[in-house]
C-alpha cells in the first residue's frame, strides 16, 4: 500500500544551489548572493513537497534484484541491497508550480530562471534527504537500517526502470509525478529511488559519486 508524505518546509542549503550553478568552491558576489536568497524564498512560497513510498519485498538474484515483482538488472543496486529482505521504493517532488515559475522567468529574467532551476534541484534533493532521515528514525525502532538511496540512471541502474517503479507506486495518483513518453519526470524537479532496509547499515554516505560511472559529470564532488 502506497503511503503519501508532504512537508511544509524543507531547508535548502545555498551551498548546494551554488554547486549546481557551477561555482565549485568559489564564493558568489553580493549581487548573486542576494538573488540566491530571494530565489530560495520565492521557491519556498510556491513549493509543494510531496512524496509517496511503498515497502517492497526484495529477492536477490545474480546481478539483479526483484522488487515487488519487478526484476531490475543492476549489479550495483544488487550490491546496495545486499542482505536486505525489504526495500523502500519512493518518488518525491518539489511540485509543479516551480515549472510554471521557471517558464515565467524565462520571459522576465533568464538569470533568475537559471538560479531558480538550480534552487529547485537542491530543493528536491534536500526533500529526499529529509524523508530518508525521517524514515531512518522510523525503522531504527524495528532494528532496520536504511541503505543509501539509489536512483535509476545512476551507475548501472537503468533509467527506463523508472517507469516500472512509478507504476508500482502509482506515483501520478499519490505524488502527482508522471513520465513523458521520453521518460522525463514531471514535475521536472522530481526524484525516484530505491532504499534498502537491512539489519546492517552501510558505511558510505547518502550519495557517493565514487560509485557512479558518469566520470565527466559537472557536479561530481
Amino acid at each position, binding site marked *: *500500500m*502506497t*503511503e*503519501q508524505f*508532504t512537508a511544509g518546509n524543507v531547508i535548502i542549503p545555498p551551498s548546494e544551489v551554488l554547486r549546481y*550553478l557551477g*561555482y565549485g568552491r*568559489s564564493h*558568489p*558576489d*553580493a*549581487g*548573486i548572493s542576494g*538573488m540566491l536568497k530571494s530565489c530560495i524564498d520565492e521557491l519556498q512560497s510556491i513549493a*509543494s513537497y*510531496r512524496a509517496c513510498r511503498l*515497502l*517492497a519485498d526484495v529477492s536477490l538474484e545474480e546481478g539483479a534484484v526483484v522488487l*515487488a*515483482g*519487478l526484476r531490475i538488472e543492476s549489479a550495483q543496486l544488487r550490491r546496495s541491497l545486499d542482505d536486505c529482505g*525489504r526495500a523502500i521504493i519512493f518518488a518525491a517532488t518539489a*511540485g*509543479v*508550480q516551480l*515549472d*510554471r515559475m*521557471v*517558464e*515565467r522567468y*524565462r*520571459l*522576465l*529574467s*533568464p*538569470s533568475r*530562471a*537559471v*538560479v531558480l*532551476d538550480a534552487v529547485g534541484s537542491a530543493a528536491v534533493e534536500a526533500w529526499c534527504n529529509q524523508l530518508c532521515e525521517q524514515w531512518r528514525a*522510523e525503522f531504527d525502532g*524495528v532494528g532496520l537500517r536504511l541503505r543509501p538511496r539509489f536512483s535509476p540512471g545512476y551507475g548501472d541502474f537503468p*533509467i*527506463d526502470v523508472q517507469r*516500472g517503479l512509478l*507504476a508500482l507506486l502509482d506515483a*501520478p*495518483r*499519490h*505524488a*502527482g509525478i*508522471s513520465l*513523458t*513518453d*521520453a*521518460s*522525463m519526470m*514531471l514535475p*521536472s524537479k522530481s526524484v525516484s529511488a530505491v532504499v534498502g532496509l537491512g539489519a546492517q547499515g552501510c558505511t558510505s554516505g547518502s550519495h557517493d559519486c565514487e560509485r557512479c560511472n558518469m566520470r*565527466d559529470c559537472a557536479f561530481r564532488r
Partner: protein
Amino acid sequence: MDVLSKIHSGLTFFDGGTGTLLQQQGLRPGELPETWNILHPDKILQVHRAYYRAGSNIVNANTFGANRFKFDGQDGRFSLEQIVSSGVNLALQAKSEFDGDRYVALDVGPLGKMLSPLGELPFDDAVERFAEVIRAGAACSPDLILIETMNDSYETKAAVLAAKENSNLPIFVTVVFDAGGKLMTGANAAAMVAMLEGLRVDAIGMNCSLGPKQMLRLLPELASCTSLPLMVKPNAGLPHVDNGKTVYDVGPDEFGCLMRGMVSGGARIIGGCCGTTPEYISSMVEATRDIEPLPLTQRRRRVVSSYTHAVDFGGDCVLIGERINPTGKKKFREALLRHDIDYILGEGISQLDLGAQVLDVNVGLPELDEPKMMRECVHALQSVVDAPLQIDTSDPAALEQGLRLYNGKAMINSVNGKAEVMDAVFPLAAKYGGLIVCLTLDENGIPGSAAERLEIARRITRRAADYGIAPWDLIFDPLAMAVSSDTGSANVTLESIRLISSELGGVCSLGVSNISFGLPNRDFVTAAFFTLALQNGLRAAIMNPRSFEVMKAYRTYLLLSGHDEGCAEYISFAGNSVMQTTPISATVPAPADVTEGDGLKGAIVRGLKERAAAIAAALLPGSDPMELINCQIIPALDVVGTGFENKTMYLPQLLMSAEAATAAFGVVRTAIPAGDGSAPKVILATVKGDIHDIGKNIVRVLLENYGYQVLDLGRDVPPEKIVEATAHEGVKLVGLSALMTTTVPSMEQTIKQLRGRVPDCRIIVGGAVLTQEYADMIGADAYVKTAMDTVRYADRLFGRG
C-alpha cells in the same frame, strides 16, 4: 427514483475502496485491477454485492484505471471496450440482485499523464481518451458517471467535457485536495467549484489522499462555495507502518462517527476511498441513517477562476487588464502578425505585476486566423500566468476555442441586446461556463438614457435564462461614452450603474478609458471618472494597469472607502511610486569588488539591468549610438564572457550581464535606423520528446546579445518542423539541445533529416547528456559545452568577433 432525485431528496451512500479488497484476494502490486473484470468476474461481483449489502446506494463499476493508454487491445492486452463493458455489466448484475434505490456509476479516474503545457498530452487528446471510456461505458447504461481522484483541474475539465459530449448521464466529480486544501496542480476549492459549476456537473466533492479528520477541516470551505450536492469519500485515515506492515489509522467505528460529522457539515453523498471496506460503509450507514442532510443553498456567486484561484465580483472592484489587444497598439499588432507569442506573454505578466486581477485577451486582426490564434494565446498564457482570462472576441468560433482550452471558468467579452449575438454566445456559455459581460446596446444602437439601458439589461437577463444561464453569471457594461462629444454621457453611465443595481440586482463593469476619448491628458479624466464609477458601485473595470493615474484612483478609493485593511495596499503602492522618482544613482550602491567603473560598461558587467538602461538613455542624446554599442556594450559582454570561460565569473552573472546588455540595446536601438536584416540567423530547438529548455534559453539570450537573429522553435520540436524552418529561412546554423539519453535518438533523427534537405547547414549540439563522443556518433558538426562555446562557434562560422 432516478439518481438525481435521490441526491436531492436526502442522504445517498456510495461504496468504499476496491483495491484493498482485491489485494486481500491476491491482486499483486502493479497488476491492473480492471483485468479482473475478465479474469476473475466472480470476485468483482462479490465486492459489489458486499457493498450493496452494507447499504451503499451507488456502487462504482471496476473501471477506475481504464483508458486506452493501458488497454489498447494490442499484443494480447485487453481492449478498452472489453474492460469497460465487462466492468459496468458486472456492477449492473450485482445491482439487479438488490431492492431499493440502487445505482451503478461508471468510474472514471485520471489518465496518469500530465496535460500540456505542464506536460505533453494535448488537451484535445485528453478529451478524446476520456471520450473513449465514456462511450464504452455509456453503451452499457449505467446510472451516472463518477469522475474521481482528479488532482489536476485541466484534466478534470477534459473528463467532464468528454462526459457531456458523449452521454446524457448525470456527472459527479470528486477531486483530491491536500491537507492545505489544494490540488496537486494548485487549484483551491473555490476555483474547482467555479469551473465545475460552470460546466454544469450534478455533484461536486472530494475523495482520496486524506482521512475523514483532515477532510472535516476542509469541508466548510468547500461547502461555503458550492450550490450543488456535496460528495465526500475519504480514505480510512492516513497510512502508517506498524510492525513492518502499512495500515490505515481510522477503524470502521470511528469512520462512521466522523462521517456523521461530515453530514452535519453539509455532505449529502458519502462513501469511502482507499482502505475502506464494506465494514466501514455499514458503520457509516448505521451512524448517519437517522440524520437529515443540510438543505441545498443557492450561493449566487459571481465568479471566474483560473487553475489556482477564483476571483469574486461580489467585493472590491476587479481590475481587468486591457493590454492584450491589437486595437490602437502598433507594437502589439506587429507582434501578433509575426507570431511573437513571448511578446504577448510579456504583456500579460507585466499587467499582473502592476495589479490586474483578470486579463482580457483579444487577438482579432483581419489578416489572422483568429480561432487558431486564440487557442495558441490561451494555451501559452496558461503556462505563465495564473490569473483568470477574459476571452474577448466577436467571432463565435474563436470564443469557443478560447473557452474550451481555458483551464478554469473564463470571463466572456461580450454579448449585447442583439438577438443574433445572444443566440451565438449563450449556448457556448451554457456549455463551458463563463461570466458574461453584457453590453447595454442592441439593434438600435446605444440608448441615450439610463432607463433604456436598464431595459436592455432586463431583456438580456431573460434571454440568458432561456439558455439556463443564471443572472449571477451576467455582468453588465452600461457603456462609457466620450464625454468630449456629449458632456452628459458620464452622468448617464453612472446612473445606469445605480439603476442596474437597484432595479435588477445586477452588477456592472466598464471600459473606463472610453470616457476621455478626444481629450488631452486623457488619464486625468479617466481616473476621475473611475473614482465616480467606483462610488456608484462599479464591480469591474477593463483598464490599463500601466496608467499611473488610474491605479492611483483605484488605490486611494479603496483606502478612503474603508476597503484597505491597515492601509497596506495603499502604502505598498505609494511606496513603490516614490521609488520610481528617486535618482537611480541613489538606489544602486556600487559593489566594492568591481573595477569596471560606473559607466554603461560597468553597469553591464555588474548585471544591473535598470541602471544600464538608464545610463544608455542618459548618454544617448550626445553620443553616436554605434559607438555606444561598439565601445561600451560589446566590450562589457566580452569581459563577462571571458570571465565565464576562465571560471572567474559564473552562469548567473553571465546572464545578468546579458540582460543588462539587452536593456541597454533596447534603448540604443531606438536611435538607430531599422536594421537591414543582415544579422545572421540561427535556429535553436530542444528536440522532440525533450521538454527541458533552460539550457537552450541561455544560449538564445547570449546569441541575441552578440547580434544574431535567433529563431527559437521552442521545446519538444519534431524534426520535420526544424527542417522546414531551416530550409524556409535559409538558415546556416542550427543548434539542437537534449537533456537525457532517451532523447538523443530524436536528435540523431533530426540531424539525419537536416542533412538530407539542407546539406550546407551546420549543426551544433549541446545539453546535459551530450559529449563529444555522442556528438560524433550522431553526426553533428560540433559539440558545444557552454553557451559561450556556441557564441564562439557562431562567430567563427560567420567570420565575426
